[in-house]
């Protein structure tokens, strides 16, 4: 009776070990450069394209919205990592285009999931533009299983607030169910993160998001967050939202 269970456990381990090793490989190879620049490329997820100069477009699978223009190349994601004193101090990314000028280490094409996890881990400690670029590059990666890492960053109270807000934004753009975002909202602190969620949720354009925004507008402990939720509800043009406004006015 015990043997099958053990076999399953070993199987899980066997599956996960190569991922860890590969991710470590990306991290350890980058760590081998004490001072200088490391370059790597990886596949972008379907629907993401760029002009190689920093502009990126996403074809929204939910709405079918596309704001593409020529030339829009579907990947790869190109990342340049700045190292100083053995630390990663900067991240710059773009989609499409050609390789940037020479780097101290060129990793070439790396697995998208490994690169995304490395960049997400960086975002826990980096701030500012580098964190923003690391997170967007991770979000553009053809790595569908990294979204829990974005949620982990949103919940990380030691990370910079802007990084957490960016992670929340990209989580909102992901394929994660709206129910996950709704559940996450209840744990969001401080207030600016909940305020940001009132912007992220309506991008979903679905019933669950509208219901949650109405709930926030009714019950959030911060009046400004309630008012912001109401504003974004108004942008939805959803009949439930209009009914809610009328209810507020007659209560």
């Amino acid at each position: 009776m015990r043997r099958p269970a053990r076999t399953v456990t070993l199987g899980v381990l066997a599956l996960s070990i190569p991922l860890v090793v590969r991710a470590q490989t990306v991290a350890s190879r980058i760590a081998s450069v004490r001072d200088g620049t490391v370059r790597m490329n990886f596949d972008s997820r379907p629907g993401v394209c760029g002009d190689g100069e920093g502009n990126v477009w996403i074809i929204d699978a939910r709405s079918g919205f596309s704001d593409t223009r020529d030339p829009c190349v579907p990947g790869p994601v190109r990342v340049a990592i700045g190292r100083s004193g053995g630390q990663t101090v900067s991240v710059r990314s773009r989609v499409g285009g050609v390789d940037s000028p020479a780097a101290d280490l060129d990793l070439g094409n790396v697995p998208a999931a490994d690169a995304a996890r490395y960049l997400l881990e960086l975002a826990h400690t980096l701030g500012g533009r580098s964190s923003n670029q690391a997170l967007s590059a991770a979000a553009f990666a053809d790595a569908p299983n990294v979204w829990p890492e974005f949620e982990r960053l949103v919940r990380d109270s030691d990370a910079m607030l802007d990084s957490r807000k960016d992670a929340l934004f990209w989580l909102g753009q992901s394929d994660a169910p709206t129910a996950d975002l709704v559940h996450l909202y209840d744990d969001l602190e401080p207030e600016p993160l909940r305020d940001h969620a009132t912007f992220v949720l309506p991008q979903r354009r679905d019933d669950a998001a509208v219901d949650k925004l109405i709930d926030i507008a009714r019950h959030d402990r911060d009046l400004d967050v309630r008012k912001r939720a109401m504003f974004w509800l108004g942008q939805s043009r959803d009949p439930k939202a209009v009914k809610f406004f009328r209810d507020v006015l007659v209560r």
Partner: protein
Amino acid sequence: MRRSVGALAIAMVYVVPATAQTLSQRVQTTDGRVEIVYASRPVACGDGRSYIGHVFGHTVAGTGVYQRNSGWPERPCLPGPIRLEATVLDGEITHLRAYVGPLATDVAGARTIEVPAREAASWLGQLVASGRSPVAGEAVLPLVLADAPDPWPLLLRVARDDDRPRAVRTDALFWLGNGVIDHLGLDDRASETPDDEMRSQAVFVLSQRPRDESVPELVEIARANKHASARRAAIFWLGQSGDARAADTFAELLGTR
């Protein structure tokens, strides 16, 4: 002899005392900057040089209008007369700017004309009703500020007049809305609750919907909602709408036509 009489008559025409001239003539015979000083509404205040406070719950500075309790400005808001600075070029008024509060002491080079508030209001009313833009629009605020009979009937005419510049009609409608709020006694925000803030926000959000949907709803709220905060917000956003139905609603609420 006949010639001398003619010369005397001409001299008499050109030495008409200043008091017999209209305010409009007195301003327009100036070249450059002239200041018209007249009494303001008793509640109005300002620092005499940058902002005007307590104008139906608003503070005005430059071209911006700020809601009360915004934490701005820093200098004390003191009662005082209106000092209306007019720039005149070749007999044409090109710019008006109003101040309330202590009179500035550094007005070197500017001619000052002190007039009763009613006279100033009459002149400003003419500018609003028939003057050129942008001066006609700039005349609305100093008209509203004057310690004179309410200018609402005139502003209603202007707001409904398709021949007046759009900016003037917009200004007229904005201040009419504030007049309605004052007339109905809806401006007391001292006891506002978070629910009132949510009601105001709900009205704002409704006002952002397409005009055909939002204006009738705002009209209904302005007329009959049981909450002062909701009515006040609806009247305010109607005043921003530029819609003729807003002027009709304001006329109804003011009890005028």
